[in-house]
C-alpha cells in the first residue's frame, strides 16, 4: 500500500495521464480481466451520443467514460437549474444558468483523460431528431434519455435505417426502464455462466480412442497394491468412455435409456472403482455420467443461424460472419457428421499432468483438423463470390469455430413498432406481473405526455387531479393491446405515477444508468447476451421483469 504521506510527483502523475499500452493495461486491469484487450479495443473505437443530460443519462455516460469508451457527445437544450443540483452529479453550483449539455459534458469528460471529447451541443434533442434525419450517422450508439413517444418513433426509424444501436432509458420515481435496439447483433463470445464442454464421450475419433485404449485399468489395479496412484488419476472421460463401450456391447449398441438403465450405469462406475470409487476421478465420472446418454445436439441458437436467410444466400455482400456460418454449416452437414467443429478446450480434470497435457494435445489437433475442413469450405464459398480465398485470416476462422456452440444472432424488434399497437408483440407484455403493469404505466404516461405536454402528476397542486385523464389513455392503450382492463387492474400503478410526477430520483437513475451502460458495453464489445429487448426495474420491491415487445 502506498504511503499517504508520499503523494506522486508531478512527473509520475504526467506519465500516468498519457494513454499508451502500459497505462491502459494498468488502469483498466480489473475490467480487461472480464472482456480482454480485444473487448477494450472495441470500446476505444466507439462514439456514444447522449440525448438528454438528465441524471439517468449522465449516470449511463459516467459508467462508459470510466472504462474508456473512445468518445462521447451530449445533446441537451436545457439550462442548469437548482433542481439539477439535487439529482445530477455532473453539475456544480457554478453551473446554474449555463448550458446543461456543456456543463455535464465537461464534468463527465474530466473523469477520464483517456476519453475523447465529442460535441457538447446546446440543442433540444427533440428538435434535432425532428429536423435532421441523418444525425445518427456520426455515432455508434445513441442513448435516448426520457424522450417523448413521438421522438422515440422517429429516432427508432433513423437508427433502423442507418444501422445504429439505440438504448432507450426511462425513469420515473422508483421505476426504471431500459429498451435496446439493433438491426442485427452477432455474438460469438456469449460466455454463459455454466460452460458447456464438448468431450465426445459417445463419439471418440480414432486418436482419442487410441488414447482411451492406452489406459490399461486392470494392470493399474494390480499396481495399486504397490501404491501406484495411476488408477485414481485416470481421467473421468476415459472411465466413462470405457464403460459406455462395454454397456453398448451388452445393450444392442444403445446408450442408457430408462431410469433403471441409468442407475445400472451408475452402479457400473462404482463397481469399476471398487474401493477407490470415492476418489476424485470417480466422483467426476459419477457427476458427468449423463454425458454418456444425453444425445449430442446443437443449440437452437446455432440452428437458427444455420436456418437464417443470410446463411442460405451467400453473395458478394455477405459479411465475414455469414460466410463463416455457412462454411461451418457445410462442415456440419458433411465431414462433421452432425457435429460442430470441435472447440478443443477442456475443463480441469483430475489426471496426471502428462495424461492431461496429452489429452489437451489430442483435442487441439482434432480441433485444428476440423478448422482446416471448415477453411476449405470457406475458400470454396469465397471463390464463388469472387473474393480471395485468403480474405479471412486463419485466426478468425479458429476463433469462429471455437464459438459455434455458443454463438447467437439477435434481431431486435424496432422501437418504432412498439408504439404501433398493430406491430407491437402484445403477447410478450407480462401484464399479470406487477412489473408488466409498471411497463403499461410508463406507456400510459407517455401517451398522457403526448396529449398534455407534460407527464402526469408533474404539477404543483394536487397531482392526483391528473389521474382521470391518465386512466383514460391507459384504458385506450390496454384496449388496443387486447387486454382486459378489469383483469389488469392498473389504477394503483397509475396513481403512484401521478404521485411521482416524472420525478428523477438519483438512486433510480444510478441503477438504470448502471444497467444501460452495461448493455452498451455488451453491444460494443460483442460479448455476453444483451437484454432482448425491454428491462423494467422496480425500486420499491427490488424486482425486475424483462420481455421482448
Amino acid at each position: 500500500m502506498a504511503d499517504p504521506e508520499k503523494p506522486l510527483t508531478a512527473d509520475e502523475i504526467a506519465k500516468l495521464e498519457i494513454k499508451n499500452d502500459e497505462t491502459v493495461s494498468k488502469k483498466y486491469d480489473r475490467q480487461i480481466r472480464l472482456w480482454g484487450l480485444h473487448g477494450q479495443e472495441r470500446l476505444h473505437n466507439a462514439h456514444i451520443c447522449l440525448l438528454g443530460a438528465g441524471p439517468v443519462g449522465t449516470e449511463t455516460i459516467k459508467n462508459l467514460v470510466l472504462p474508456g469508451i473512445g468518445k462521447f457527445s451530449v445533446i441537451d437544450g436545457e439550462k442548469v437549474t437548482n433542481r439539477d443540483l439535487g439529482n445530477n452529479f455532473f453539475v456544480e453550483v457554478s453551473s446554474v444558468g449555463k448550458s446543461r449539455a456543456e456543463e455535464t459534458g465537461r464534468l463527465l469528460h474530466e473523469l477520464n483523460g483517456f476519453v475523447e471529447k465529442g460535441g457538447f451541443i446546446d440543442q433540444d434533442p427533440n428538435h434535432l431528431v425532428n429536423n435532421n434525419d441523418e444525425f445518427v450517422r456520426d455515432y455508434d450508439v445513441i442513448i435516448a434519455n426520457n424522450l417523448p413517444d413521438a421522438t422515440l418513433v422517429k429516432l427508432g426509424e433513423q437508427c433502423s435505417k442507418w444501422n445504429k444501436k439505440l438504448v432507450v432509458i426511462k425513469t420515473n420515481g422508483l421505476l426504471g426502464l431500459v429498451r435496446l435496439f439493433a438491426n442485427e447483433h452477432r455474438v460469438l463470445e456469449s460466455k454463459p455462466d455454466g460452460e458447456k464442454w464438448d468431450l465426445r464421450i459417445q463419439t471418440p475419433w480414432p486418436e482419442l480412442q487410441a488414447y482411451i485404449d492406452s489406459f490399461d485399468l486392470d494392470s493399474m489395479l494390480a499396481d495399486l497394491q504397490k501404491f501406484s496412484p495411476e488408477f485414481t488419476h485416470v481421467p473421468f472421460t476415459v472411465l466413462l468412455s470405457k464403460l459406455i463401450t462395454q454397456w453398448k456391447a451388452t445393450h444392442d449398441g444403445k446408450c442408457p435409456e430408462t431410469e433403471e438403465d441409468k442407475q445400472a450405469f451408475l452402479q457400473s462406475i462404482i463397481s469399476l472403482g471398487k474401493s477407490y470409487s470415492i476418489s476424485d476421478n470417480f466422483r467426476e465420472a459419477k457427476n458427468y455420467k449423463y454425458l454418456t446418454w444425453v444425445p449430442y445436439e446443437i443449440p437452437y441458437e446455432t440452428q437458427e443461424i444455420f436456418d437464417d436467410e443470410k446463411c442460405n444466400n451467400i453473395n458478394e455482400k455477405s459479411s465475414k460472419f455469414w460466410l463463416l456460418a455457412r462454411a461451418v454449416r457445410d462442415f456440419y452437414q458433411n465431414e462433421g457428421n452432425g457435429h460442430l467443429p470441435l472447440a478443443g478446450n477442456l475443463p480441469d480434470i483430475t489426471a496426471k499432468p502428462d495424461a492431461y497435457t496429452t489429452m489437451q494435445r489430442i483435442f487441439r489437433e482434432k480441433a485444428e483438423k476440423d478448422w482446416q475442413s471448415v477453411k476449405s469450405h470457406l475458400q470454396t464459398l469465397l471463390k464463388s463470390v469472387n473474393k480471395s480465398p485468403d480474405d479471412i485470416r486463419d485466426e478468425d476462422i479458429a476463433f469462429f469455430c471455437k464459438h459455434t456452440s455458443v454463438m447467437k444472432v439477435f434481431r431486435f424488434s424496432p422501437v418504432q413498432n412498439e408504439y404501433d399497437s398493430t406491430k407491437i408483440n402484445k403477447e410478450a407484455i407480462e401484464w399479470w406481473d406487477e412489473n408488466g403493469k409498471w411497463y403499461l404505466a410508463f406507456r400510459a404516461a407517455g401517451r398522457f405526455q403526448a396529449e398534455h405536454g407534460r407527464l402526469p402528476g408533474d404539477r404543483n397542486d394536487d397531482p392526483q387531479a391528473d389521474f382521470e385523464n391518465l386512466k383514460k389513455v391507459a384504458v385506450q392503450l390496454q384496449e388496443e393491446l387486447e387486454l382486459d382492463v378489469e383483469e389488469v387492474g392498473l389504477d394503483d400503478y397509475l396513481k403512484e405515477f401521478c404521485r411521482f410526477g416524472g420525478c428523477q430520483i438519483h438512486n433510480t437513475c444510478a441503477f438504470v444508468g448502471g444497467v444501460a451502460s452495461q448493455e452498451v458495453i455488451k453491444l460494443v464489445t460483442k460479448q455476453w447476451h444483451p437484454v432482448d429487448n425491454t428491462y423494467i426495474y422496480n425500486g420499491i420491491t427490488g424486482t425486475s421483469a424483462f420481455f421482448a415487445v
Partner: protein
Amino acid sequence: MAGLEGQWEDVRRLTERSGPFAHKDFEPSPMCLKWLQEECRVLCVGAGGLGCELLKDLALVGFRNIDVIDMDTIDYSNLNRQFLFRVADVGKSKSVAAAAFINKRVAGAKVVAHHARIEAFDDKFYQSFHVVVSGLDSVNARKWLNSKLVGLSALSPDESGWDPMTCIPCINGGTEGWKGETRVIQAHFTPCFECLVDLFPKEPFNFPMCTYAHTPRQPEHCIVFAMEKAWPDAFGPDKKWDGDNEKDITWLMNAAIEHANKFGLQGVTYKLTQGVVKRIIPAIASTNAVISAACANEAFKVLTFCHNRLDNFMNYSGNGGCNTNVVSNALNSQCLVCGCEPLDVIFDRDATLQDFIDHIIKDTGSFSSFKNPVLSWPEDDEDDHDSPYIYVPPGTIWHKKTVGNLEKTMKELLGDKGAIVLIKEQGNLKLNLLSIKFTELTAEEQESS
C-alpha cells in the same frame, strides 16, 4: 449552503406526497426531508468501488451528515470505477479524497472522513448513526461490523421484545464482475450477515496440495505451488509476499513457470500470477453503480417510509440479459451472532473432553468459527461446580485450573443426561449456548451401567 431553492424538488415528491404504494406508516410532510437533512446521521463503510458510488447516491437523495470510514489509499487500477479519485490522488487516503470531492460537488453535503480501520471505533460511535451502509469487500470485515451492530441491540424496557430503535439497520452491498447483491439487515428483524454466512461465495484458488504439488494441470495450480511451497521454502515460514510489490509477483511467477515446465504446462503470465496472488476479482463501474444505488435506495426508504423496503435480499446478474431476484430469507435461530437458541450437538458419553474439543475445532459446519473454544457453565446453573469454567485454552490462569478436565469423560463432567453449557471463542465476547446430549444407550449398555 442552507438551501438552494428548488434543489430537492424531486425528492420532495416522494416525501411530501403519498400514494398507494407508500409504507403503511408513511406520513407525507416537509418534516421528513428536514429530519433527513438536519438530524439524520448515516455511516458509509468503505470509500472504494461501492463506497464512492454510495457517497454520491446518499448525498444526491438528501442525506447531509455522512461519515465515511476507509483505511486504504488510492491505487492507479482503482480509477476505472472509483470516480472520486484522479491520477493526482494516487497514494492518498481514499476516505479523505472521497469526502472532499463530494463536499465540493454536492451543495449541502457534509461528509466527514475517517482514515482508519472499522475496529478503531467504539459502541458509542456506531450508536450515533441512524443507518449504516456497507461497501466492504472482505468477509471478515463484514462479520465484524455485523457482530458490532447486532451487539448494540437491546430489549425493550418491558422486555417484551427487541427495541427497534437499538437495532440499527445495515444495508450491505457486494459485487463481483457482472454480479452483485444487496441486503437489508436489521438485527432480530431480518437475518443478520452471520445467519447466512454459508451462502457467501467461497474463496477461489483453494486447491489441495496434492494437486498443485504433484499433479498440476493448470497454470493456476503452479502459481499456488509457488505461493504455498516455493516461497516458504526459499524465504522461511515467517516472511510473506506483498501482492502490491512487483518484484514479489515476478519471483512467484518465475517459480510457477519453473514448476510448470516440469510438467509441460504453459500459460503462467504476470497478469495471471497477480490475479491469483491478490485474489483479484474483476470489477467494473456499472455493477458497482447498480448495487450502490439499490443500497442507498434502501437506506432512504428505511428512514422515510416513502415505500416498503426490500424484503430482504436482492441478487443481481448482468451478464446474461439482466435480472434481479429477491428472496425473503428467514432468521437463523441458532445463528452464532443473533440467534437465541442453543446449538445442538450429540456426542459419546464415554469420550473425553479433549475428544469433544477436537471435534469442535475440526468442524467445518456450525462450529467452524471456534478454533480456541472456551467452555463454561451458564450463570443460572444450580449445580455445584468447582469453577465457572469447564475448559479454558492456554493463555490465562484458568487454563491451569481446567486443564485436568481434558482427560475426564463427558459423562463425568456433564452428568448422565448431558447439559447446556456456554461456548465462546477465546478473545471474543459473544457467548453461545450449547446443548450437549449423549447418544442413546443400547439395552445392553443400560443394563451394565
